């Protein structure tokens, strides 16, 4: 190191020490000073770039592997195709119009057209929702959330939906269902104004995708041979690998929702990991109790259930509460995937509703119970603000109704032009060969 730059470093270090030592400025760190000077914080930006990559990895290949491993061999490639194609298609649509309608503008119902095709997004621009990172980064971070939500819905209709119909549905669903809901909760819309808390997507992502999946499963109908044929997963090791990517990626999903490299992000990450762990252990325990053996599918389902449940709460609760929320997610999702699904008779192939829908709903409600002001600035029931539970229920109800009704409408719209389902023979032969002309060898 040259003397001049060493001196420079020492001077800066001395300056920082002086700042932190002076009693009047004891509360301001050097970062606060830097933040006040320039809008864009390099530490926040670095973390958010990493978080964006983590969340994208959750879709490709995390979700692709998670889902594909659970379907039958003849549909593995087609299942992956759905995730891949959604990421590609919905990324494009998000950049063209999705981001603008969600986050540009302050209408109660919807955003505006200021950012269509990302117009006006200069390198130094910042979003009012994330003032210390480049707006382009906020946009692409949110993109990863949008695409994974759409990709999740595919799980409910695995093994039988026509690819072309699915593509149309995915494009429409992103714009018509996801964008408005994301605006209402995160883009300054009426749910945010009502005080609904959703840190990283309990409503916008999980409950939304879960309900949409359930509606789609009902509209499309059960798979041929459901309940009588052997539908054993092709390769659960793929699903395990996918789960690992989802679990690790979730550090970016929840941790990145702090939109800053700060302690709130860390609390979110800790709560997230504890919830995943607690969910996995809970499901294992339940299987040990009910069938005598803990299954690998159960472990990964429990982990994902815990992750989905903690998602809305991660930035509002204390880390140890992540354990409680993870256990709750494990319990209730186990019940919904085993008892509820069999009783109700719907064929939600990959339990999108059972895990994400029910988990997201549970977590959204529990935010209202556990929210602690020191973490997220808002109090829940246990911190003396029981009204928050009602506000959360309001948000859940709006999500449920909006997602359910709009998804139903879109499915019927698409169905008016082409069949949603492949024909019986194609379903028997498999989607890989019939929809894509490919097969695992």
């Amino acid at each position, binding site marked *: 190191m040259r003397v001049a730059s060493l001196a420079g470093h020492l001077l800066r270090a001395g300056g920082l020490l002086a700042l932190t030592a002076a009693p009047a400025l004891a509360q301001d760190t050097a970062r606060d000073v830097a933040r006040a000077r320039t809008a864009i914080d390099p530490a926040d930006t670095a973390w958010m770039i990493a978080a964006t990559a983590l969340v994208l990895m959750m879709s490709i290949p995390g979700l692709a592997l998670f889902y594909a491993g659970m379907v039958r061999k003849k549909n593995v490639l087609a299942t992956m195709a759905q995730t891949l194609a959604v990421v590609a298609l919905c990324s494009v649509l998000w950049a063209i119009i999705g981001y603008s309608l969600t986050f540009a503008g302050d209408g109660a119902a919807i955003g505006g057209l200021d950012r269509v095709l990302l117009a006006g997004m200069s390198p130094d621009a910042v979003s009012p929702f994330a003032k210390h990172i480049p707006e382009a980064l906020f946009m692409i971070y949110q993109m990863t959330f949008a695409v994974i939500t759409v990709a999740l819905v595919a799980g409910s209709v695995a093994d039988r939906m026509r690819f072309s119909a699915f593509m149309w549905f995915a494009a429409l669903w992103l714009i018509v269902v996801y964008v408005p809901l994301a605006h209402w909760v995160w883009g300054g819309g009426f749910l945010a104004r009502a005080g609904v808390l959703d840190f990283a997507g309990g409503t916008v992502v999980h409950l939304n995708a879960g309900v949409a999946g359930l509606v789609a499963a009902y509209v499309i109908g059960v798979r041929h041979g459901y309940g009588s044929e*052997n*539908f*054993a*997963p092709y390769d659960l090791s793929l699903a395990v690998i996918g789960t690992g990517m989802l679990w690790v990626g979730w550090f970016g999903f929840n941790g990145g929702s702090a939109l800053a490299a700060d302690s709130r992000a860390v609390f979110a990450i800790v709560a997230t990991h504890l919830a995943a762990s607690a969910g996995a252990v809970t499901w294992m325990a339940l299987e040990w109790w009910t069938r005598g053996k803990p*299954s690998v*599918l159960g472990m990964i389902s429990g982990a994902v259930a815990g992750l989905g449940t903690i998602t809305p709460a991660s930035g509002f609760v204390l880390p140890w509460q992540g354990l409680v929320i993870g256990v709750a997610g494990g319990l209730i999702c186990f019940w919904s*995937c085993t008892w509820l*699904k*069999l009783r109700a008779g719907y064929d939600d192939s990959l*339990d999108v509703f059972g895990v994400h829908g029910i988990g997201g709903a549970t977590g959204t409600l529990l935010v209202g119970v556990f929210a602690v002001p020191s973490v997220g600035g808002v109090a829940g029931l246990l911190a003396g603000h029981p009204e928050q539970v009602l506000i959360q229920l309001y948000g859940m109800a709006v999500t449920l109704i909006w997602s359910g009704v709009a998804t139903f409408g879109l499915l019927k719209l698409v169905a008016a032009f082409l069949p949603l389902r492949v024909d019986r023979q194609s379903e028997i032969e498999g989607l890989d060969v019939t929809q894509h002309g490919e097969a695992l060898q």
Partner: protein
Amino acid sequence: MPIGWAPEQPGTTMKLVIAIVKPFKLEEVRDALLAIGIHGMTVSEVKGYGRQKGHTEIYRGAEYAVNFLPKVRIEVAVPTDQADRVVEAITAAAKTGQIGDGKIFVAPIDHAIRIRTGETDANAL
């Protein structure tokens, strides 16, 4: 008829020994056959059941009965006078005493030919 094809009664000079055995017994069977001078075989992975029961798998509440068990099918073509020795060797090597050990079938071979040289029947084995 190909050159060198023996015009005698088909089915008396060669036998195809077909053994269905438990997969982990494959190497033992191969060693046993090598020991009596049999140097070639064809092996395939198959599924099947006889008296051995399958098992049940449960995936998130969905139960499936798996009736077919993995087995290995070994096919060896031998001159008729060696067929009995081959059957004995396979039986001794593949036996565990548990249900599901498998079965051996002996079927007649009408003709055999070595593709590379064109040798036929006994010379092809």
